[in-house]
């Protein structure tokens, strides 16, 4: 075996384009900062800033991207697996986040209580309860998709529309506030570092370990590519699809806790709103085919942060909140086009032609 260059490995891993996309967004920041006479590397500047509640904490645009992008990144992990195994998307994750937040806050505050600073149950019970609620939703989705053979989009549409309402029901139609430092922790800081970043890192590490130390990754891809052949080779195709939905729900639960902790409340109507779209887009930006099969977790996560970087950049550029989606859409179109087959084929042709010109003059 010949040793491959770093460049060769990067192209092969399929991470090249996602990384280029992210760099592109960063480049826009640099250009903007130069044009407006700021430090060109403003985007990357990290400073310590003093806050009354948390002491010295890290501050800067890149920290903001990492912090704000946490929920989407966590969702993207589960979404990647679901897309791979079932060639479909779980569109319920945003709503499930909200339901999990509501359930967690309801446990912590007690049923019918709208605001509290003392916890009704130990923190851990509330948090685990919320996460388990996510897993329960995943079980529901997984059952419909894997065992009843319902199209993923249709199956998850049920919780997409119902989960928020169930959350409101659990909270007795109130926005439940849990004004307690220990609960706020998940959305604030651990030392100088925003806790959501740490939670995301933990989620990524656990998932990576699971994929590395077990055959789950290969099973999922195999089932996603050819479920019939996988079954003949001894895989329980249905069960594997089922498992990916549970994992996806579980991560939605974690994301829900983070989102709710940020605002120390369970705002059913707003938590996780449109986040399913970001999660799906992250998977696509990561170079994964939404048609299932081979997946690239790192790509999805980079994709999630790219989306957040676009949003943060637009705000930094002073684009108004109402217009931002338009610009976001334009950038996303560019990135997706860059990764599309015709463009890739064109680039490959140019490379081959170039190689032929240089090497073929014999």
């Amino acid at each position, binding site marked *: 075996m010949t040793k491959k260059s770093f460049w060769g490995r990067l192209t092969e891993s399929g991470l090249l384009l996602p990384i280029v996309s992210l760099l592109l967004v960063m480049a826009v920041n640099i250009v903007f900062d130069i044009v407006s006479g700021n430090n060109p590397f403003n985007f990357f500047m990290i400073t310590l800033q003093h806050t009354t509640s948390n002491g010295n904490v890290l501050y800067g645009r890149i920290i903001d991207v990492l912090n704000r992008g946490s929920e989407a990144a966590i969702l993207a992990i589960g979404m990647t697996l679901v897309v791979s195994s079932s060639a479909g998307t779980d569109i319920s994750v945003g709503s499930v986040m909200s339901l999990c937040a509501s359930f967690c806050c309801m446990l912590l505050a007690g049923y019918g209580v709208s605001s509290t600073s003392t916890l009704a149950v130990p923190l851990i019970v509330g948090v685990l309860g919320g996460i388990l609620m996510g897993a329960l939703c995943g079980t529901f989705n997984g059952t419909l998709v894997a065992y009843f053979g319902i199209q993923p989009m249709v199956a998850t549409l049920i919780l997409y529309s119902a989960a928020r309402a169930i959350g409101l029901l659990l909270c007795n139609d109130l926005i439940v506030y849990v004004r307690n430092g220990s609960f706020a922790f998940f959305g604030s800081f651990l030392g100088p570092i925003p806790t959501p970043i740490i939670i995301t890192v933990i989620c990524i590490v656990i998932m990576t370990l699971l994929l590395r130390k077990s055959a789950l990754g290969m099973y999922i891809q*195999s089932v996603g590519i050819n479920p019939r052949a996988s079954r003949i080779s001894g895989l329980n195709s249905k069960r594997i699809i089922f498992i990916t939905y549970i994992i996806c729900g579980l991560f939605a639960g974690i994301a829900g806790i983070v989102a709710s902790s940020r605002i120390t409340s369970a705002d059913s109507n707003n938590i996780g709103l449109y986040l399913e779209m970001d999660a799906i887009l992250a998977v696509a930006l990561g170079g994964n085919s939404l048609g299932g099969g081979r997946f690239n977790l790192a790509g999805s996560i980079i994709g999630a942060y790219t989306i957040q970087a676009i949003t943060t950049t637009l705000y930094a550029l002073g684009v108004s909140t109402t217009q931002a989606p338009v610009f976001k859409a334009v950038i996303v179109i560019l990135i997706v086009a860059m990764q599309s087959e015709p463009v890739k084929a064109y680039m490959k042709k140019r490379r081959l032609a170039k190689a032929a010109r240089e090497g073929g003059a014999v």
Partner: protein
Amino acid sequence: MEENVVLTARGITMTFPGVKALEDVDFTLRRGEIHALMGENGAGKSTLIKCLTGINDFEAGEIHIAGIDGPVKNHSTRDAQNVGISTVYQEVNLCPNLSVAENLFIGREPMTAFHTIDRKSYNKRSQKIMDDLGISVDVTQNLENYSLAIQQMVAIARAVDMDCKVLILDEPTSSLDDEEVEKLFVLMRRLRDQGVGIIFVTHFLEQVYAVCDRITVLRDGHFVGEYPIAELPRVKLVAAMMGKNLDDLEEIGKEHENTAEDKLEISAKGLSHTGTVKPFDLDIHKGEVVGVAGLLGSGRSELARAIYGADKANTGSLEVDGKSVKINQPIDAMNLGMGMLPDDRKAEGIIQDLSVRENMILALQAKQGMFKPLSRAKQEELVDEYIKVLQVKTASKETLVKQLSGGNQQKVILGRWLITQPDFLILDEPTRGIDVGTKAEIQKLILKLAGEGKSILFISSEISEMLRTCSRMAIMRDGEKVNELDHDLTQESVMKAIAGGEQNND
């Protein structure tokens, strides 16, 4: 252009990452000839065909077609059709969830006066096309309801029905049995007499000598030569393909000894699967190779699938190694030491987008369980070993399996099962699409496994292949096991039993 020539390709060169699939290949097709394109697995036959039909974008070379000035460059199969090239590809690529008729006319549907699709007329025309070919199907049924062989016939019918100057058939006979092959040959000869030039790829040498007029041989992506059929007898053809002489191909395994032991490995009583196979009894001893013969759709594969749990048996009982067992799905069978190589490579065999390595270790990994992953070193060791045993031609272990030639994909799946070291292995058309040299190797391998006390159920449309390896044969007819032959196994006796000319002797 020389008179009578319909298609010439000159200096065709095509590279895939890491593989030079074709280098400076010439090919000439004349009017009214059947031209065999021969070569070992991975020689570049399918690649050349895909260059002609616009699927592959070759780097160098020119293609000329009679009646068209200047080189022709097809960019899609539609382009190819427009210049009169009609193709049946190696892997059936029709739409399983459309009806037979829809598959026949997709992209060229007859229209009514109101510019809507004329369903009535095309159902009628489809039925006529299939009847003319002597295939009994209901054209309004979805294609997926039919066996691979029927699907292959539909693909052929579709290609033949288009008005063409050049007809390309890439291993169209790989899942057909003698009767269907004969029907196809009649059709091919008729088209030849009408002046169509036909390119025919097959690994069955008899078929080449039965219908072809001329042979072009490729080896490792290179053009070896073009010969009139009379000038290239069988032995020379094999030598041209392999680049060396193969020691007496026909004799391999003919004198095999019966390695069957007394102990039973498999004992099925009254096993059935509703709609596909009626209740049957079957005993297979340790160290025995049992064949299953029968016409297309006679339930050969279905019998095996009922044992393996690919289609869960509805009735009956099964004993493995003397113990009564219950098999609900394939993994249960695997845990009892079984393995099954299915006949439909594309639908049930390969995991297209996984690497050769992953494809080969998949079954063993599934057997071990999710939380006991095989170490990378172990995987590479196993894969290297079986790549060597089976002579898989691949750029590397990490090459995606879909990038291998058809025959090499088949070897990968065979490797997948050999790696699990099963006690009982079901081989459903294991040599489909495999070249002559390797075919002999695989037959030897089967006998070697039997010698080690493994049991094998061998299904094949090629009776001669089974005769060389099996000591007993089950005969299937209309989903029913009608007979079992255990002595005087000859081509005639088996054919007779299949056709039903002989009384049951059990």
